[in-house]
């Protein structure tokens, strides 16, 4: 242990690990877990304040493989968004990270997912997007591209749902896309999401090496690598670091997050303003038309209040309130009785 690097709260990166993974060797999901570990470590977040939530699928198993010291809830297929909303209401001081799959989120879970975003529930919600149902052995998911080929040869005849597009449309306030293999991009995006209060949706392309890694698939490792289209390079500066960054005028852009942390976007050849909804959608449409994966912080809306704020909840988490605050006085019942006598 001696000499091992620790973060601001004196934890090593190891302290953020979980149980050994049971993913297939090479699965993109494992790479994402590693980025999650990195992000929490780097942001010095106390794992005991974190709750890990998921649905059902290979992806949804992964919360067991990071942050061993956090509470976790592997719920039912497609309903993580609802469960997370409930947990958030019960205790808004917890830091929720959700992991889901493209089947879990965009097929069975689509309706609830959309409404969670509409409410701007505070969560860092990762869709580990591989275009297939991994755990049930390789059927097309709703993010499979039209024309993509299944392992058995079947061709998908319906257009894909674009997670980032629907997230922006439905009111998510922090929307990014990344690639499981790109920890350099993904980790700071995750840190930003954790600092953001509201629905942060991360569409992370995460190749399924077992069922969707063949010729003809548009989510194979090779295909994805060949078609990445990053908007910008991303850096994260935590709120407690008082760094004054030297921005290259016109090429770097700073985005301030709710807790004072900042995300710095380093331009890559194009102008891009993540706070413009229409522009964001246009950029996505353009990339999709070219068969590319637009990555980076695609959309960011700092203005909307998160869900629990709209609910005007008391500061103490509802879960922590005692009978004194939860039970009105008996006299108030008498008053109501009196009214009901009229």
């Amino acid at each position, binding site marked *: 242990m001696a000499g091992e690097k620790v973060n601001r709260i004196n934890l090593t990166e190891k302290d953020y690990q979980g149980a050994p993974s049971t993913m297939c060797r090479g699965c993109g999901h494992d790479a994402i877990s590693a980025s999650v570990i990195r992000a929490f470590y780097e942001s010095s977040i106390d794992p005991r304040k974190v709750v890990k939530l998921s649905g059902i699928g290979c992806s949804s198993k992964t919360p067991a493989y990071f942050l061993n010291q956090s509470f976790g809830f592997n719920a039912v297929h497609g309903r993580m968004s609802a469960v997370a909303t409930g947990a958030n209401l019960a205790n808004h001081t917890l830091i929720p990270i959700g992991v889901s799959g493209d089947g879990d989120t965009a097929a069975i879970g689509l309706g609830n997912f959309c*409404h969670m975003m509409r409410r701007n529930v505070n969560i860092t919600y990762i869709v580990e997007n591989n275009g297939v149902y991994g755990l049930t052995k390789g059927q097309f998911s709703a993010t499979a591209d039209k024309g993509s080929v299944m392992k058995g040869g079947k061709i998908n005849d319906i257009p894909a749902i674009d997670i980032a597009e629907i997230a922006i449309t439905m009111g998510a306030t922090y929307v990014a896309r990344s690639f499981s293999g790109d920890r350099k991009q993904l980790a700071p995006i995750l840190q930003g999401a954790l600092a953001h209060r509201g629905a942060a949706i991360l569409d992370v392309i995460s190749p399924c090496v077992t069922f969707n890694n063949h010729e003809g698939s548009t989510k194979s490792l090779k295909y994805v690598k060949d078609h990445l289209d990053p908007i910008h390079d991303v850096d994260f500066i935590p709120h407690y670091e008082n760094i004054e960054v030297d921005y290259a005028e016109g090429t770097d852009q700073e985005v301030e997050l709710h807790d004072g942390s900042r995300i710095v976007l380093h331009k890559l050849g194009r102008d891009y303003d993540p706070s413009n909804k229409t522009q964001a959608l246009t950029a996505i449409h353009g990339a999709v038309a070219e068969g590319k994966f637009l990555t980076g912080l695609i959309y960011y809306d700092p203005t909307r209040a998160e869900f629990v704020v709209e609910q005007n909840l008391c500061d103490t988490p509802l879960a922590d309130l005692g009978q004194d605050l939860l039970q009105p006085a008996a006299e108030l019942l008498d008053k109501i009785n009196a009214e009901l006598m009229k």
Partner: protein
Amino acid sequence: MESPTINDLNICIATENGTGSASANNILFKSIFKMGIPCSSKNMFPSNIQGLPTWYQVRACADGYMGRKDVIDVIVMFNDATAAKDIYRVRDGGIIIYDDSTPLQANLKRDGVQYLGVPANKLIQKIVPASPLRTKQRNMIYVGALAYLFGIEMKTIKEVLEDTFGKKPAVIESNLVCIEAGFNYMKEKGFTQSIARLMAIPNGNKGKIITEGNTACALGAVFGGVSVVCWYPITPSSSLAEAMEYYFPRLRKTKDGKATYAIIQSEDEIAAAGMVVGAGWAGARAMTSTSGPGLSLMNESIGLAYFTEIPSVFFIVQRGGPSTGLPTRTQQSDIQLMYYASHGDTRHIMLIPHDMKSCFDFARRSFDFAERFQTPVFVAIDLDLGMNLWSSNPLVLGKEPFDRGKVLTAEQLEQWEKQGKKFRRYFDMDGDGIPYRTLPGNMHRRAAYFTRGSGHDADARYSEDEKDYKETLDRLRRKLETAREYVPKPIIETSDGAKTGVICFGSSYDPVREARDRLRAAGLKTDHLLLRALPLGEESREFVAAHDRVYLVEQNRDGQMAAIFKEEWPELGSRIASVLIYDGLPAAAGEIVRQIKAHEAHLRTGAEEWREKKLIASI
């Protein structure tokens, strides 16, 4: 000619919905109540906002029976669309009050009843200028007419108007004018009747409240400390959540005006159930309320809560099923679905209130049960209890502290460690099937665990091991066995030497009470067991065992509660005969008496009954 009964009268008012009759009916009912007469009301309204038939029954009953009465003494026939059938709803010798602004059509005439015409349309045209209000206030005419005919005091009516419309003297006045017009018309015509008279009983309903089961449940939950409510609108449960929306801001704000609750209208029932599970997991007292279709949709999440052992409360206000069925009519036909909800081996705790006080009490205590047993708990009522007005003694807040169940705080965990005890989320340390839990946010380094709906071991680790799995299932069953002794016990009434028992639950209670009195008068003494919860307990077994024959009254077609009795105690099963009411109307004593008498007249053995079953449905 019969001589008038005193305070024994059953009025049925037939109108079209959306015409504002609700207001008139309310005044009528409350006026009788205010006179101190025991009375009840039943609203048979359509699943539609305007223009479909609706019936409202007000029953005054000196003997205090609150159930619907199927024999109607007076019908107010204010809906042309149903008039042809309505004239036959009234008993022989009864009264039909109709609008004789235009002459009665030939097909609306029948023998053996007294027709009393009141020209409501004409009267109202004189009083109210052409306005949307006119249709509405026309209904006040029959209030006045009934008042005159049966002796409802105008002074009481005025009081009720004041109570209802509070500080709007203009509204009080405009309604009063119409009521008086009806009253005076009858008086001028010199109409009389000789079937019934209402007479004030001083202090008769003193101290009594009038409320609906949904309101009582809502208050129970609010006083029970619920802090997360997620719901989706559906009749007849919407008004439960809406009552909470009304009472929460008044009762559950902190000094600085912040909410100690969250009440969320979710996008559907699956979300509502999911949110409740998430909130229960994170430590809040959480609930949802719904009806049949919503319950069907919640099935998967209920199983999740059962298997992961998350406290969660489901208020189910039953309506006519299957499918969309009759959304605005009453049934008790989701009993099996609640008790067995979800796939796999599941059985759930159900609390079954039967009156306003138990609605309040059980709603309040449901959270104690849910947290004590770490499991979904159903509070099962029905439209009759939930949406009809019931008179009741005032609600009383019990003094018991909340039972938060086996939750370990960080401090307690520290203690445990010192005592060498290990926190194991799903370990049956106490032998009662109930494990200990910690809440997310607990900062003790051993507090965290992983919750999953898939197989797990006593330490909450993923496991597909057959022994872990069986152990979990066995422990869950053990938990249910523990619950048997814990849930509200049945209330038993015995009379010396009765060999016949009657069992019922929920909204059947009052009709059964009345039916038993009638049966006793006819020579059949019965004992009674009011079932108030599932799983069944020893008292219920003993009751069945102690009687030669037990009638189990329930409001569904298939004898769903009887099936649960038979499953538990097959050796007693053949003693049980089902009394089944399932036409969507609130249970009435008359039908219960009829079925029991028919059964007594022709006692059958189980095997015969089975052979006959095939025919029964066609009778």
